């Protein structure tokens, strides 16, 4: 199940749930359905008896990561970031590396950019794989009492719509400034680029800020690698009227998000489809692959699906079952035709 609990399903029940998940994505996203063969392929992947499954030779994908170094820090292993990156490269055989500070947001990182530059510069000398620096735009950190802007989440229930919109616009400007400042610092220290992780977690104003920051960075550094990884499948319209390149941001699904990421200058787009914890794994997987495939088909840049705790069909638990993670990964590669995860 999407909450990680174990259930036993017949092949007919798996087929039914995959079909229903696909239909849900088609209805919500107004996108093409998967073909009968593609649905059968997902059912086959779900019904394989092995606990861990993989792709056919030749269908391997490359991986980018979010909060890379934090995955080790969170386990309570007290080693430095350059050494964690060496472990990723030589022990985990990671295709790419992502260096990240424990306070994984641009606002707190702004004040420690020199220290982060040391880590980036040191890591770039001792690793060969592409090195990204990652952080979250995290717009709510710019709202009172933690930040300078009025809190839109408090203004909206009071009916202060205009003030709430102004507050979000103000916060977006602060966020753009911080994203450009931090990204510039780590790029000039030697990183190959930046990963904007969980973009639009705070809705359309945060997506707007990230797209504008990407646009500025692309103009400043034409060769910089920029990955925009999303927070959810649907851009929430907390503001409701913000636009980028003439397109209203509220309500966009991945196949429309990616076109704006391209326009802004992103190198890789990270598509996200959220897991419904009360539905089955086949339902969530069918739904996630349908959304991601629609995104891949319209994209002109590589698309990496987010496949992890609570996204990409994977159950929302701290220790995602490997049978689900491996099946989701295989389906994303072979049916979704993703460029990476």
């Amino acid at each position, binding site marked *: 199940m999407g909450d990680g609990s174990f259930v036993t399903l017949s092949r007919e029940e798996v087929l039914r749930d995959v079909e229903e998940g696909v239909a849900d994505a088609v209805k919500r996203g107004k996108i093409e359905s998967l073909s009968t063969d593609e649905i059968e392929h997902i059912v086959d992947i779900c019904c394989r008896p092995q606990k861990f499954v993989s792709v056919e*030779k*030749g269908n*391997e*994908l*490359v*991986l*980018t990561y979010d909060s890379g170094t934090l995955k080790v820090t969170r386990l309570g292993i007290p080693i430095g970031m350059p050494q964690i990156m060496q472990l990723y*490269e*030589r*022990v*985990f*055989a*990671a*295709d*790419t590396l992502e260096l990240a500070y424990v306070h994984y947001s641009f606002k707190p990182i702004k004040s420690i950019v020199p220290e982060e530059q040391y880590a980036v510069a040191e890591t*770039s*000398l*001792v*690793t*060969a*794989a*592409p*090195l*990204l620096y990652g952080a979250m735009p995290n717009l709510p950190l710019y709202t009172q009492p933690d930040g300078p802007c009025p809190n839109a989440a408090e203004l909206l229930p009071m009916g202060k719509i205009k003030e709430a919109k102004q507050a979000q616009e103000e916060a977006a400007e602060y966020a753009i400034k911080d994203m450009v400042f931090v990204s510039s610092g780590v*790029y*000039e*220290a*030697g*990183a*190959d*680029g930046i990963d904007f992780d969980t973009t639009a977690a705070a809705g359309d104003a945060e997506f707007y800020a990230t797209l504008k920051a990407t646009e500025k960075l692309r103009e400043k550094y034409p*060769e*910089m*690698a920029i*990955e925009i990884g999303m927070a959810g499948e649907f851009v929430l319209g907390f503001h409701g009227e913000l636009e980028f390149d003439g397109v209203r941001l509220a309500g966009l699904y991945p196949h429309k998000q990616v076109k704006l990421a391209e326009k802004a200058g992103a*190198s*890789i787009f990270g598509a996200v489809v959220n897991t419904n914890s009360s539905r089955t794994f086949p339902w969530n997987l069918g739904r996630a692959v349908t959304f991601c495939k629609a995104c891949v088909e319209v*994209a*002109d*840049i*590589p698309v990496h699906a987010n496949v992890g705790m609570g996204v990409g069909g994977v159950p929302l638990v701290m220790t995602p079952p490997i049978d689900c993670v491996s099946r989701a990964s295989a389906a994303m590669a072979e049916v979704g035709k*993703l*460029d*990476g995860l």
Partner: protein
Amino acid sequence: MGGIRTAGDLVARMQLSRKMRLKEAKEYVADKLKISVDELADEVIMNELRRDLDIGDVYAGMGEQARGIEAKFRIASLLDVDINSVQRFLKKTKWQ
């Protein structure tokens, strides 16, 4: 895909630096390495090839394999791409 155990880092680098889709990135790297696309993720073939080309592998402590920035100099030349840390190294050592 296997990172520096295979050609995963090289394929990923082409996605990040040139915005290449997966198929195009694999074909580009395979062409530069003069191997087939299927061989890119073969650990044995790639380990030998990475040693021959001296572009770094997971056994960085054994022999005299290029490591870290040394390997990246060679990868930049092999893939015909500018790597930011390599450019910075050249600038700081006044070689360019």
